[in-house]
């Protein structure tokens, strides 16, 4: 899949970064009552849905009460995890000084301890977005979601693993920061993760006690209905969160990167990588709220700490900026974006796996695959050597991402000479 991203000169990248910084500064200056009222209203709605849902399930032997209660509880968990929890934990409301809206204090209604999420998501994923070998959101350590991940027979089960991950997503997320695959290979000792495990256990215990022991027992004769309702609500939230999150970075057209080409990025380059690696979803206001505004994944990755309900208005400016720089702005309705993710899950179950362009892509990217397979964390010297040797192989990514050129010579004095060279490389390898 050839990249459609243009090559930007260092000057363009800097100007591009400044335009995005300006958007950020303007929104930050405008933060106020409107934002606090929004999040507080959402919290009230979520808590109301939760109380109503659990209350209705007490009468769960009546089918309409069971359906209504389960739906309300599902919505409550979705709102709690996505628009409220995920966004508050990014520190989007830290400026309010309200302890209840504090990113470091917030805990959410899911199995993953907030503290571990803040590390694996806020830091690892958001700083190293789509860098194969660093961003563990690429496949969660169990799926093959990148052509750069070398194929093994294990990956024949890709669609099955994806279905399991989607169904038990809250536990997948809870185990995310454990790096179980590195424990399995012996790279990490289980003992190193003991503290983390006991935190996960404490959180899972609290969640299980509430959803599968206390509320069912308290409901007396409705026990089986409450149990089923709570399990359904958790499953619904799991499937929904998986769907939205996998639409963020894996639809057709999103790009992935190597550690080498992202070394010594400037802020403009970092913005550019976030943009090329993320994809949006189109939909109505309610859809965006239920998606935690992760349907504006691009804006979220550019400005992870701005209140997410602002992304809709910001997206107009971001897409306009992208148009001016001819940067692809990846967006589409849920069914087509998720459809392309599902196709990718199936495609990558097999060796190679870039569809019609698989062969070309295989040839072009094989040096990168070598680098990645060396462990995904290859010493940079080795990575650079491979990159330099590969010549045409690197040309594709060189053209696609200005970051690649900056790894060799930071965007300083050789601008004039490097510009036409890169342009030539671009025309030579496009298609």
């Amino acid at each position, binding site marked *: 899949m050839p990249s459609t991203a243009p090559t930007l000169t260092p000057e363009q990248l800097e100007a591009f970064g400044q335009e995005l910084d300006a958007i950020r*500064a303007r929104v930050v200056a405008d933060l*106020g*009552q409107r934002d*606090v009222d929004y999040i507080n209203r959402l919290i009230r709605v979520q808590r109301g849905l939760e109380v109503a849902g659990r209350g209705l399930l007490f009468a769960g032997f009546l089918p309409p009460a069971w359906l209504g209660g389960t739906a309300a509880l599902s919505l409550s968990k979705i709102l709690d995890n996505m628009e409220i929890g995920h966004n508050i934990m990014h520190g989007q409301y*830290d400026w*309010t000084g309200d302890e209840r809206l*504090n*990113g470091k204090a917030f805990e959410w209604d899911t199995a993953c301890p907030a503290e571990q999420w803040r590390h694996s998501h806020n830091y690892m994923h958001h700083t190293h977005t789509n860098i194969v070998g660093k961003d563990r959101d690429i496949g969660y350590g169990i799926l093959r979601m990148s052509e750069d991940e070398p194929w093994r027979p294990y990956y024949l089960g890709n669609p099955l693993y994806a279905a399991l991950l989607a169904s038990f997503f809250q536990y997948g997320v809870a185990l995310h920061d454990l790096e179980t695959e590195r424990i399995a290979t012996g790279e990490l000792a289980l003992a190193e993760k003991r503290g983390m495990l006991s935190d996960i256990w404490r959180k899972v215990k609290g*969640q299980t006690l509430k959803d599968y022991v206390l509320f069912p027992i308290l409901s007396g004769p409705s026990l089986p209905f409450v149990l089923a309702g709570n399990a359904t609500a958790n499953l619904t939230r799991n499937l929904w969160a998986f769907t939205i999150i996998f639409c963020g970075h894996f639809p057709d057209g999103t790009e992935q990167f190597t550690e080498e080409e992202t070394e010594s990025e400037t802020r403009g380059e970092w913005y550019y990588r976030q943009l090329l690696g993320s994809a949006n979803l189109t939909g109505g206001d309610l859809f965006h709220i239920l998606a935690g505004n992760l349907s504006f994944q691009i804006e979220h990755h550019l400005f992870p700490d701005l209140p997410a309900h602002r992304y809709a208005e910001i997206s107009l400016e971001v897409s306009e900026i992208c148009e001016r720089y001819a940067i692809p702005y990846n967006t589409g309705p849920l069914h087509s974006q998720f459809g392309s993710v599902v196709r990718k899950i199936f495609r990558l179950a097999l060796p190679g796996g870039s569809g019609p362009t698989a062969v070309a892509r295989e040839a072009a990217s094989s040096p990168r695959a070598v680098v990645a397979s060396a462990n995904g964390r290859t010493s940079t010297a080795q990575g650079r050597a491979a990159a330099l040797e590969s010549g045409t192989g690197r040309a594709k990514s060189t053209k696609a991402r200005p970051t690649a050129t900056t790894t060799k010579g930071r965007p300083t004095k050789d601008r004039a000479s490097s510009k036409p060279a890169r342009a030539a490389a671009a025309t030579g390898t496009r298609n």
Partner: protein
Amino acid sequence: MVARAQSSRLAGATSPRGLGRRLLHSSLAEALTFPHGVDRYVELVRPLLLKRDVRAEVTAVRHQTPKSVTLTLRPNENWRGLQAGQFVGVSVEIDGVRHTRPYSPAGSQHAAGGALELTVSTHPEGRVSRHLREHARAGLIVGLTQAQGDFVLADPRPDRVLLISGGSGITPVMAMLRTLCDEGFEGEIGFLNYARSRELALYGAELDRLTDRNERLSVARGFTRGRGAKLTGRFCREHLPAVISEHSGAATFVCGPPALIASVRAVWAKDGLAEPAVETFTPAALSFDTDGAEGIVSFAASGREAANSGLPLLEQAEDAGLAPDHGCRMGICNTCSCRKTTGTVRNLVTGQVSTAPDEQIRICVSVPLGDVALDL
């Protein structure tokens, strides 16, 4: 008073309301509302009925002077009471942002139902004071900290008490005076009370009333920019005989602007007397240069201090041998977010300069401008 408070609390334990409270505070309720906790649900319906947080409802608002507002507060059951002279942190939300400021309640520590009286004087730059003057209404809920500070009367009470206040500094000494009167204190009390003018003088009528009722209390007022007062000009040794027979040996409490405190201290030092108890809430003047490399950075939780090197606070903390949590080092991930208790910092990403006490900052992109204290 104390006995009455206790008996009402005992009655509360068996009333329906007391049972409700006990149920809400049970570990079962906590397990059912995991992980948010029962307060996060109850507060949406009953904002004062909380297990942990101290909050208060404004029950009355009056304006004594054109530049002040006097609020009566009813704290919730988590309030542990105060000693006259102590201060509390009061939090209000202004345009979505929570601001906390210290105020010394002016009421007696024995006030019925634990009610607090706050008299807030407005300053042109005072965001919170102006907000309270303009917007505080009965029914407003504010956040409180527990009472703090050691500007308090000794227990048992001293034989003779001398109070000296300037401007809005009247509030903690007013609390002491009212408390002593409630306790039927029989010793001598002298009170030198300075204000800019009669128009801006606080608690004038009440001081007259108290003086009429207590012959061992004498109050003298001085207006530094107006006429019609017993005393002329600012505080000086000559003012003391107007209110007290002999100032040496009297337990002395001074609250007001730094200049007043300095001149009282000078007199006491000259007479070879022990330092009087003092309290001031006037913030030190802002001073910073663009290099920002001045002042002391203190890490309160670990008890370390270092001279400000002008680097981001995360690096200064690491240079001081600390290992704060951190992630991206570029202001993105919020891992290093930490509470700044006092001081001014500039955010390197936004260029924003912030001075608010008790705010969360990302130390990887914040440089101190002058003295800064972090909860690290």
